[in-house]
């Protein structure tokens, strides 16, 4: 379990994280979403005691990270930035970390095997690809067989096989009753990995809900309908409260009506349908919509004052 309470981090005049509170529960994968620069890494670094919060506090398993007796045996962390001396071999990197936690050297070989780096364990880390570097970081994270995993952008640089592997690793950890907190700016990856989402933009909380609910409440549901008699159908559907827009290719996009209801109405009127397809916005769309006003490095400057940026965005898209 991870608890963040009113976490705030300021760098001079710039607020990186503002009054952020959330709880990450065990037994499920919790995704930490936000555009680049939203404050995800800063938040994770505060959870791990690397950055000192300007105010507020963070607890893991009930303690400040620095109070954990052998921290890597409770919390495994993968940071976004590399955290390996490039002149040291993978095995020696893990060995010196294991020694600080009183872990036996054979645990190093176990995690090397687990992440698939056994064959290159003696090679210096400077020759590692991005993906190998990520695997080494994950090996360090699971070294102490921790109860809590905190992973910052773990799929960065991984090949498709690696992406599936890390996804399964996280899901098995969660299934075993452990806590998994994983950040990403890739919505679609989170849609298939995370059970729960904490979404932030510009250091503020935007959403804290299940992945399903997040998609549900933040995307428009529409139904694509084709009919040889589009004009009459439009009239019928509009009469029932549907919002109909005609596309160039003759298809109709209908909002506010379920596909089944549209079919029934068409049948009642004796109208022929050539297509009846429910469409739902992707998580990507939902995310773009929600964070549109909170993108830190957006192409068009977000004009909303910082204090109001996040909340209205959420309301508009309901």
């Amino acid at each position, binding site marked *: 379990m991870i608890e963040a309470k009113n976490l705030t981090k300021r760098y001079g005049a710039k607020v990186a994280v503002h009054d952020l509170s959330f709880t990450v529960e065990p037994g499920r994968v919790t995704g930490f979403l936000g555009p680049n620069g939203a404050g995800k890494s800063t938040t994770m*670094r505060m959870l*791990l*005691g*690397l*950055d*000192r919060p300007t105010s507020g506090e963070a607890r893991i*398993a*009930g303690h400040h*990270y*620095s109070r*954990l*007796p*052998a*921290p*890597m*045996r*409770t919390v495994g*962390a993968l*940071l976004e*930035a*590399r*955290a*390996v*001396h*490039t*002149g*040291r*071999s993978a095995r*020696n*990197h893990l*060995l*010196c*970390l294991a*020694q*600080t*936690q*009183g872990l036996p050297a054979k645990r190093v070989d176990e995690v090397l*095997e*687990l*992440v*698939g780096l056994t*064959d290159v364990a003696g090679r210096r880390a400077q020759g590692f690809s991005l*993906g*190998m570097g990520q*695997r080494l970081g994950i090996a*360090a994270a*699971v070294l102490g*067989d*921790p*109860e809590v995993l905190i992973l910052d952008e773990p799929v960065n640089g991984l090949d498709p*096989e*690696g992406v599936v*592997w890390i996804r*399964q690793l996280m899901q*098995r*950890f969660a*299934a*075993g*009753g*452990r806590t998994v907190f994983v950040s990403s700016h890739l919505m679609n990856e989170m849609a298939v990995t995370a059970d729960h989402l904490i979404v932030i933009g510009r250091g503020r909380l935007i959403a804290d809900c299940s992945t399903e609910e997040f998609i549900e409440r933040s995307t428009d549901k529409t139904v694509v309908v084709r009919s040889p008699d589009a004009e009459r159908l439009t009239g019928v559907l509009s009469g029932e409260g549907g919002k109909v827009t005609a596309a160039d290719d003759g298809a109709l996009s209908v909002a506010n009506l379920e596909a089944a209801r549209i079919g029934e109405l068409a049948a009642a009127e004796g109208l022929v349908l050539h297509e009846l397809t429910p469409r739902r916005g992707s998580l990507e769309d939902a995310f773009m919509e929600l964070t549109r006003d909170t993108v830190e490095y957006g192409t068009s400057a977000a004009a909303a004052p910082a204090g109001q940026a996040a909340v209205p965005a959420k309301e508009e898209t309901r």
Partner: protein
Amino acid sequence: MTAAPADAAPPSVPGAGARRPGFGALLLAEWTKIRTVQSTLWSLVLLVLLHLGFTGLLAAVFAAQWDSMNEGDRAMIGEDPAGFFLGAGLSYSQLTVCVLGVLLIASEYSTGMIRSSLLAVPTRLPMLWAKAVVFAALVLVLGVVVSFGSFFLGSAILGDRLPVGLGDPGVLRAVFGGGLYLAMLGLFSLAIGAIVRHTAGAITGVIAFVLVLSPLASLLPGSLGDYVHGYLPSVAGMAITAAVPSDDAVLSPWAGYGVFALWTAALLAAAAYLLKRRDA
């Protein structure tokens, strides 16, 4: 590259079986860190080569020139041959200790390793102390060995003209002092590396202290210059490598070493304070 399936071992109870590992575990970890990067090996090899090389070179030059040297010069070396042998080597070999001391911590910042180190030891200071102890011990042992080497090499080359033995007053202290000086210099450099956190900047800082400040201070007029010069870290520290303190020495050997230790302690304290306070 194939990976074994993700292991789903049963979750461990919070903190179960996890006692805080003692300082010994951190010493072992820091020893692993220092022995597993190549810069350590190269720096230490260079330390030995420079130390013995320059002692040998200067001794050989003086031996060759001996007959054509004037009395004043002969007397200057003759006063303290042991100090001359040690000083000849140390003046150059000390630079490798400066560089290695800085690298030990600054390279953790430049590579990002510091984040792993601090995740492992979030109370932070024990990590710094363990690093300091391991490094100082390593340099002390090697420094004493190489000082003995330098002494014997020098006396083998110049011994017939400048007879000197380990039993002569102050000589043994000076030879051990060579190791003590290097060990303290290592800590001094480590502290500056920890404060500055950038390799190039920190090395420049240490070299400035060791090489640049001392000639500058000697330019100050009168006795003020002598005092400032005498209390500079490397000048004060080097006093311990003189078997026979020269007449113009401001501090006695042990007092000088004490002053150097105070400089180092102050810098280590600043490094500790900043390490605890700053974001990593």
